[in-house]
């Protein structure tokens, strides 16, 4: 059975060319970048070339790029590092209700160290309000951390405007760019950010490696110890194969950005149109166009997300859901709830995140499959009665 992968926001397949280059750095150019000898120097050169590539892709300077084990670690270093370094100036952090747990849990942990956190609400599209942000800022605010694009609903925040506010008030601004980098234009100066997290496996790079951009002049205190690599911001022997892989994957993604965006937006709109035309009692979650090109997220009424995913999986289709059953907790996705969805509607959510290898044929197959699956699940559902068959359009 042909398998169709539509979970690119979870992870992407590593580009084979990238993997090929990485293999070289695992087997032949394998030196530890800190070693004095020729093997070490080769490793060091590969590391610094990679750093330059990443800096160029983001509009930054090489000295502002620090490699990590991924987006989660980058978020941890950024938030905890900035908070602790600025404790004397203030203890207030502002974030949003729809951040990834890497941000929310880190902020939560900081409240145990004496920091106060304001969590900005979002509207029905998942957008924060600049007015709320302005009102939340006090003279004790030392950090604003708001994600560029949300992983579940794809909504893109007004980062440049938030950054402008932060700049004007002298507050450090971090954005989690894990879901935006490689998918939409990201330039650290256009966006007015001081820190930016990225993760390679979201843009056809390898898993286990990411980076944190830290604007020159922004101080952080490190959160782990044991070496002087990455100028002590992130000690530990550098994962050169991963770092090289990340840098090449990022370079490719940025070079192909416009082409990929056009292609994905076209596919996305085809999928959204197909679903809204064939299936009733459903709603698109997130903003119609301030949205990551490949992200489609619907709530289907009267059915539950895990059951939906299982049936899709039986037809070879891979997606994800915000239902409680798939999150492993008793509550459905905090992102969907923050947008104002009821628990019931959040439980019936489906996220299909498209990638550059998906095709129109696949989209059409998925739409047909969804129509069949929903008919089956709704026939089984105590919440759906046949009188509802007509009407209730998306």
């Amino acid at each position: 059975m042909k398998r169709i992968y539509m979970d690119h926001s979870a992870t992407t397949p590593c580009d084979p060319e990238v993997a090929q280059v990485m293999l070289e750095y695992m087997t032949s150019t394998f030196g530890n970048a800190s070693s004095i000898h020729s093997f070490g120097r080769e490793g060091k050169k590969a590391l610094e070339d990679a750093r330059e590539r990443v800096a160029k892709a983001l509009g930054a300077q090489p000295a502002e790029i620090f490699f990590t084990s991924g987006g989660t670690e980058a978020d941890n270093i950024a938030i905890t590092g900035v908070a602790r370094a600025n404790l004397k100036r203030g203890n207030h952090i502002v974030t949003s209700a729809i951040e990834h747990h890497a941000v929310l849990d880190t902020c939560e942990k900081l409240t145990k160290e004496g920091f106060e956190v304001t969590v900005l609400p979002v509207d029905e599209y998942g957008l924060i309000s600049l007015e709320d942000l302005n009102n939340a800022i006090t003279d004790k605010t030392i950090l604003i951390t708001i994600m560029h694009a949300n992983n579940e609903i794809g909504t893109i925040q007004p980062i440049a405007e938030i950054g402008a506010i932060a700049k004007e008030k002298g507050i450090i601004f971090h954005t989690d760019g894990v879901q935006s980098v490689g998918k939409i234009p990201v330039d650290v100066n256009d966006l007015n950010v001081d820190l930016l997290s990225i993760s390679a496996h979201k843009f056809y790079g390898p898993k286990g490696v990411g980076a944190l951009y830290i604007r020159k002049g922004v101080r952080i205190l490190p959160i782990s110890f044991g070496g002087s690599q990455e100028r002590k911001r992130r000690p530990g022997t550098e994962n050169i194969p991963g770092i090289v892989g990340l840098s090449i994957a990022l370079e490719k993604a940025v070079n192909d950005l416009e082409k990929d965006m056009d292609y994905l937006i076209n596919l996305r709109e085809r999928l959204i149109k197909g679903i809204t035309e064939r299936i009733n009692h459903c709603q698109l979650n997130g903003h119609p166009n301030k949205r990551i090109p490949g992200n489609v997220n619907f709530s289907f009424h009267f059915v539950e997300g895990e059951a939906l995913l299982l049936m899709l999986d039986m037809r070879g289709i891979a997606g994800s859901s915000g239902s409680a059953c798939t999150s492993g907790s008793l509550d459905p996705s905090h992102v969907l709830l923050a947008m104002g969805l009821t628990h019931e509607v959040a439980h019936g959510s489906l996220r299909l995140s498209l990638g550059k290898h998906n095709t129109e044929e696949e989209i059409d197959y998925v739409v047909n499959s969804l129509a069949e699956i929903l008919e089956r699940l709704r026939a089984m559902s105590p919440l759906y009665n046949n009188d509802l068959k007509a009407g209730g359009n998306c």
Partner: protein
Amino acid sequence: MYTEKVMDHFSNPRNVGELENPDGLGEVGNASCGDIMRISLKIENNIITDVRFKTFGCGAAVATSSMVTEMVKGKTIEEALAITNKAVAEALDGLPPAKMHCSNLAADALHKAIEDYQSKQK
């Protein structure tokens, strides 16, 4: 994650639907927690002659509902009352630990349907 038996009951659920004028009707769960099971029964001479279920919930929820209807058809009311959630899970060769509580309400729905029947007899 799920056993073969669970996947079988999920993809080919037995006894889906509702009975017209059921002798007993029971519903457990709620939409905000993500699971609702409704069971309707036809009872003659103390025996459950027919049963149907409707479920809003995950794979385990559907499978346990389907399995309980299979286990209970043709049984006496006393036998049906003795069926536990644990027995349903065992009949399915087990459920993942996380699924044992929230989605394993099928026997509860069955018992509620029987209680409904019994309360109508008084």
